[in-house]
């Protein structure tokens, strides 16, 4: 039985993540990742997608993630300039594995994106590996698996999930 206070620590970390993204504080958000991180979002038709063999929406290492943030901060990332409004709800947080170095976490999310007269929710779950460091947790693996069947309403994944 994992320590219940561990779950609240993890929840606090995920709420901080959500707040930084909703506030578009992308540089601060980038500091939540380890240098050996991966950030993956599989396609809607292949939720089990493996980025080495399958096309996915996002397969970022740290360098690509920096590129993504740099792009989003530019006023030439047109789908997000001006920024959309987002509101992230993170819930059903479960610790699935724990070691002195790492914690594996599963959580559900709904991310509402509001822009240009439309609101479209991204619904799915996170599969996370958090590295424990002195300053708290960092994302080592962040996999956001979507429940939608297509990006019919959303068009793109122009925000960070």
């Amino acid at each position: 039985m994992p320590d219940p206070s561990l779950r609240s620590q993890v929840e606090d970390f995920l709420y901080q993540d959500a707040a930084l993204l909703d506030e578009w504080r992308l540089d601060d958000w980038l500091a939540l990742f380890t240098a050996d991180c991966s950030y993956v979002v599989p396609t809607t038709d292949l939720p089990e997608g493996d980025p080495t063999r399958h096309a996915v929406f996002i397969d970022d290492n740290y360098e690509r993630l920096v590129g993504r943030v740099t792009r989003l901060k530019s006023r030439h990332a047109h789908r997000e300039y001006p920024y959309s409004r987002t509101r992230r709800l993170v819930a059903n947080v479960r610790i699935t594995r724990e070691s002195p170095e790492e914690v594996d976490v599963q959580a559900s999310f709904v991310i509402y994106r509001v822009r240009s007269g439309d609101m479209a929710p991204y619904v799915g779950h996170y599969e996370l590996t958090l590295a424990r460091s002195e300053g708290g947790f960092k994302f080592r693996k962040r996999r956001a698996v979507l429940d939608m069947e297509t990006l019919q309403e959303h068009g793109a994944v122009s925000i960070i999930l």
Partner: protein
Amino acid sequence: MSFVQPTDLVRDDPTAGVFRVHRSSFTSQEVLDLEMERIFERCWLYVGHESEIERRGDFVRRTIARRPVIFLRGSDGEGRVLFNSCRHRGAAVCRAASGNAKAFSCFYHGWTYDTTGRLINVPDESPYGPCFDKSELGLTSPPRVQSYRGFYFMSLNPDAEELPAYLAGAREYIDRLADQSQAGLRIVPGGYRYGTKANWKLMMENFSDTYHFETLHRTYLKFLSSQAGDNRKEWDEYNRVAVFGRRKAYDLDNGHAAIEFGYPTNGRIIAVWHPAFGPAARPGVEAARSRLVERFGEERAAAIADNSVSVIVYPNLILLDIVASILMQVWPVTPGYIEVDNWAIGPRDETPEMLARRIEQFELFVGSAGFGAPDDMEAVESCQEGYAASAGQWSDISRGFHPQSSGDSEANLRAMWREWVANLASETHGAHDEARKPGVGAAAR
């Protein structure tokens, strides 16, 4: 606006060098109804690739021109397209998105069809009486189904010309793609399907419009440049030439059209290395190119390997053979809303390392979360919104049209529009009978 004649929607004046499309072409329900009748129900439409139905019984569900179909390989080994509607009362007999099946048993009353479409079982058949004939009640097929080099197409028009004739000059580019590997091509698992609030022709134009590249996609070019490290200057220059340099537009007949970059843009997984692939990928890419030279000689190998190209396979398929090879299909739903499929396609026998690079480059540019495609989407949606400004306006597609103009040309887009207007104006299916066949090699105006 209610238009009088479809021909009123396009102004095609070669002497003045003016080519314009009336914006109601993008907003009118009347136009879309006519497009469905005179384009989507008459032309050949791409259904799927042979690699998606590799084994007997493999199937994929698709919707083609609003018709639910099953694309499948029958127990006899034949690739097929069947309408996914039970002959009894109409329910879908295939309800999974894809898979492998021995038979399709309708979930409503249990009529069962084999993978060639034959009705093989009807529960409690006797009340139907003696005239009931199962052999007449198989799943039906679209009037025409043919494949070219592994690409399956269907037509709702029983009198459609043969597929290779229809594909005309576009065959050359399908050949170049198919010749990339002796082992054949394969759709990479993981497809993108998304909606866009724009007219289907805006998206077709966008995928074949190179004019916007350096303006709209500067964050993508910046990212590529940031990847080049110490060679940044050299690769910025490379990218500049790649993007602006030697583009040429071609009318491939029947509405098909191509724009050739005359350059391997941001590298080509098959088979021109670029720093963005990383040094580890270099030997593999170079070996792939040598194999092409061995198989085809330098000239043909260069056409296959070194030239990025965007091809409109009229009416609604784009073959974007750039850094990676990409198929995109655009389906109109309403005048202002489309659904789009994107797939990465590549050699079936490529190494895991090359496949990883291919996937990465596909995701990076045309991916729904990539550094390019979301901006394209924003642009076409913005155009569509702009059409509300004034019903009477025209969009301009005149670049490179004037007899004295030089440099970049939008002749590929004009080729698509000319076929479009000829199709809409034609009450019978033989819209492209009046010969206009410059073919591959002739740059068009």
